[in-house]
């Protein structure tokens, strides 16, 4: 073995060499984001469609871009490929956070972003404004989905609405009596269902706690569950830390939740309509309701990457996916309310009613996932609101 006094200098030299190489890597932002404000970078919008480029890379929630490979009967991609000449490549992501980091690689042309991802993509310059004139089917989209906080900035649309759903309260009808009517059922520390409550595993769930506090503790002054200053966030975090003792598990993929309700490991908690439908389809006695406080929800938007080399194909896809046929197919397969009003004309009997697709009042009770930012979304200018980074750290502390 080499004597020690000779080894170290060489090791240090090697490390220094590696450090230099490494320091050349890792992208960074050239323009620091403005302090405390949300500014959408000035990116040009596509003015007209060119020739299809032959390929489009899609980043989607699982189930949004089915091409028959999982089930030959479920396919709204192959027709698109034939008509447009754009070969479709799909990558699925599990959470909005994954979507944001994947979009940063610049490898994808379109993304189906939920509201908690969209503003971050806009601010990061990863997506560009969308020219709705180039998307003919946009005209048929329900009005209450257009020009919302999460898909537009100063009146400029940054994407095409895909569909939406609410986060409902699901419970086992044979285990939970009397039937719950309020979100208090999952926050009550004296709950008889201790150890069998479930909640969504993402920092965005903090908004659900904030919504509950908005209605039950008005002194806190919460106007918008995504717009929380430090004190309001602390209150929500305390509520969730108390809830932690009741939790069986936090779910992030919906099969887990269906299983948990089937076996009885969870008997009450947040859910999506599709989960309740699948469970009912398996003869599990559950019911899903919209509690009296209203609820959070999600509305997905198809956005175009600013670094895309296939913008024409991207726009063709946008128009295709919200066409009545495709929009209905996705909505029924995934289990959500479609964005295109005409989709309800061709949907299966009762589908749109079950998902309350055309019910603007129902839709109005929903606080759609929006990324919390420093600039308070409820309009307050005297305080700084907490942003998603703060929520993520809080979420780690809540789970403990």
């Amino acid at each position, binding site marked *: 073995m080499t004597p020690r006094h000779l080894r170290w200098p060489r090791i240090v030299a090697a490390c220094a060499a590696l450090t230099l190489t490494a320091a050349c890597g890792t992208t960074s932002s050239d323009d*620091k*984001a403005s302090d405390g404000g949300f500014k959408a970078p000035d990116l040009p919008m596509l003015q007209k469609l060119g020739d299809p480029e032959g390929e489009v890379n899609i980043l989607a929630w699982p189930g949004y871009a089915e091409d028959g490979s999982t089930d030959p009967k479920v396919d709204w991609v192959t027709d698109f490929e034939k008509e447009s000449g754009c070969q479709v490549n799909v990558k699925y992501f599990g959470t909005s956070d994954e979507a944001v980091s994947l979009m940063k690689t610049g490898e994808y042309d379109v993304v189906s972003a939920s509201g908690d991802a969209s503003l*971050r993509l806009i601010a990061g310059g990863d997506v560009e404004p969308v020219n709705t004139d180039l998307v003919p089917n946009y005209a048929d989209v329900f009005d209450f989905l257009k020009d919302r906080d999460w898909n537009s900035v100063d009146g400029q649309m940054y994407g095409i609405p895909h569909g939406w759903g609410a986060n409902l309260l699901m419970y086992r009808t044979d285990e939970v009596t009397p039937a719950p009517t309020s979100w208090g059922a999952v926050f009550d520390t004296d709950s008889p269902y201790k150890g069998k409550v479930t909640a969504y595993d993402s920092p965005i769930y903090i908004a659900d706690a904030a919504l509950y506090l908005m209605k039950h503790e008005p002194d806190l002054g919460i106007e918008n569950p995504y717009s929380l200053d430090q004190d309001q966030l602390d209150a929500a975090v305390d509520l969730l830390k108390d809830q932690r003792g009741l939790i069986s598990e936090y779910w992030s993929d919906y099969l887990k939740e269906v*299983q948990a309700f089937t076996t009885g490991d969870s008997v009450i908690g947040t859910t999506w309509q599709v989960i309740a439908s699948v469970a009912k389809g398996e003869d599990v006695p559950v019911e899903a309701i919209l509690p009296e406080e209203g609820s959070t929800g999600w509305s997905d938007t198809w956005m175009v990457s600013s670094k895309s080399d296939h913008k024409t194909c991207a726009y063709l896809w946008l128009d295709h996916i919200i066409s009545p046929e495709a929009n209905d197919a996705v909505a029924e397969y995934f289990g959500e309310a479609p964005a295109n009003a005409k989709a309800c004309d061709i949907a299966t009997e009762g589908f749109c009613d079950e998902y309350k697709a055309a019910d603007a009042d129902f839709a109005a009770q929903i606080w759609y996932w929006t990324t919390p930012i420093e600039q308070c979304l409820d309009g307050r200018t005297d305080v700084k609101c907490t942003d998603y980074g703060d929520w993520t*750290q809080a979420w780690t502390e809540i789970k403990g």
Partner: protein
Amino acid sequence: MSTASEGTRHGLSAVLHRHPRLRLSLLIGPPMLWLGVAYLGALGALFITSLWGQDSFTGTVVREWNLDNFRILWESEVYRKIAFRTVGIAALVTAIDVLIAFPVALYMAKIASPRMRQVLVIAVLTPLWASYLVKAYAWRIMLSEDGVVSDLGGLLGIDTPGYGLVAVVITLAYLWLPFMILPIYAGLERLPDSILEASMDLGAKTGHTVRRVVVPQVFPAVIAGSIFTFSLSLGDYITVRIVGGANQMLGNVVYDNVGAANNLPFAAAVATIPVVIMLVYLGAARRTGALENV
């Protein structure tokens, strides 16, 4: 084969034969390029990132040198709790695996007939090919309220542990068991029977022989296996999401920060914890000669 190429080859071979240093560098060069530059460089780049910051909204890395990430790690109680929990789970999983693997490997290596041995080796290796995810989900089903464990436990009067840390330990111990059996089996195989016979001849009973002769000889192999089980448990984030209920481990914190707030610098800072732990562990393991048994 033409004489010319034969001649070149012979000439080349002669050159190589006369210059051992040249042979060495040709042999060690490519692996070192691959591992040393690519892999170490990648690790280096990652850890440099932990010294930078992040624009928390857009997720882009801001190249300002600071120790904020480490300060947060040090000051927040929750990360310490998670780190201890993770190390504890890894240690427990390793201990359980050793306790199960040792008798099984001993049986396979020393007592089973050669035919049986072949069957057992195949039997132990086959589960490695069943997907990790599928096995973890199978345990999820088995540990559920009215699953297999609950039914069996009912016979003994105990209930299923449900989804939580106990379930995580059980599942991880299950998943990594083959990785512990293999090195111990290999180590035991190398142990000559003559030593065992000698021990018996000298009057030692079975238990004594095992304790004083077998275990010390096989110890490096056990440590080698433990490197796998410990390291795999330390960084795991998938099993705890499947059977861990509401819990989280270090791997989850890293994963959530890489994907989540897109905070690569912070994730890199958290990642230093398992890396430091493993480097210390490897350093200690080296002394036992375990690294040759991996």
